[in-house]
């Protein structure tokens, strides 16, 4: 179970200005040995108190709004989560990530995996080429208890820059029917066969591209001696329109 990835900013609880009556009320609670903290009193019981509304709606129209009838949604001050705010948040762009050694290492290992597969050649840009952009996607993989398993960076192509007929001919989205999975489980159970599972690492990187696709150099990791060079892709990478088709073709 992943903890919520984005946390709303935790606001300090709004404490209504303690008026004379509220202070007396509080004292009464103390004297009667009732352990009710003033924060836990419901807004209804403190309704005679001045409401902490900063913005008072002015009515220069005939419409009756809910706030004019004193109907308010209960303010949600905190997001409830048993996890504390994570010390590491996922960066949204490469400029946030490069300063962190964990993310830098994650990007390096992704690049090493791509290069060891011979995914691309770095070439001077051909005249008529419009390279497809790419970006980094950062994810923190967590264990079941919420602790950090690993930092994962993935270089993905911006497939929306791809032009049908030029950059790709067909696209594909592999799906599996739940009935197929259940059938397989049924067969295994009926025969008493053991069930195993496996996962292919970097499954995308095993498909050779038939189309010629040019891609820009990854942000943050440009070759400084050849900044205007582009990658000519030899193998599919994540995000390409045709990438998913190659998964099936290699099997």
């Amino acid at each position, binding site marked *: 179970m992943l903890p919520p990835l984005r946390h709303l900013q935790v606001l300090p609880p709004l404490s209504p200005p303690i008026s004379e009556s509220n202070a007396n009320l509080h004292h009464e609670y103390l004297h009667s040995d009732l352990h009710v903290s003033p924060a836990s009193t419901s807004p209804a019981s403190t309704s005679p108190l001045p409401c902490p509304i900063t913005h008072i709606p002015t009515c220069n129209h005939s419409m009756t709004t809910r706030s004019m009838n004193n109907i308010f949604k209960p303010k949600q001050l905190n997001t409830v989560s048993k996890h504390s705010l994570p010390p590491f948040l996922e960066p949204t762009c490469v400029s946030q990530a490069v300063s962190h050694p964990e993310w830098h290492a994650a990007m390096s290992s992704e690049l090493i995996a791509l290069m060891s597969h011979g995914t691309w050649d770095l070439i001077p840009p051909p005249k008529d080429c419009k390279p497809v952009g790419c970006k980094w996607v950062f994810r923190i993989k967590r264990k079941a208890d919420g602790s950090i398993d690993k930092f994962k960076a993935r270089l993905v192509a911006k497939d929306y820059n791809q032009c049908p007929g030029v950059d790709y001919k067909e696209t594909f989205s592999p799906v599996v029917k739940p009935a197929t999975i259940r059938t397989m489980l049924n067969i295994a159970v009926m025969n008493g066969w*053991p*069930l*195993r*599972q496996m996962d*292919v690492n970097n499954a995308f990187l095993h498909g050779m591209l038939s189309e010629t696709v040019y891609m820009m150099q990854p942000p943050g990791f440009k070759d400084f001696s050849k900044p205007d060079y582009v990658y000519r892709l030899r193998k599919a990478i994540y995000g390409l329109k045709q990438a998913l088709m190659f998964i099936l073709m290699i099997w």
Partner: protein
Amino acid sequence: MITGSDNQFVGHVVNTFGARFSVKDMGLLHYFLGVEVIPITAGLFLAQHK
């Protein structure tokens, strides 16, 4: 997800994949595409709850 009558052959298939691709052998099936699989004596218990 792999299954078969011959446990040795299943292991051989996994090893063959491992020779060609970089694979992660995840052992016995426990979670597959949103379905949790828990082996019980009567068969398998499936849960769509992580």
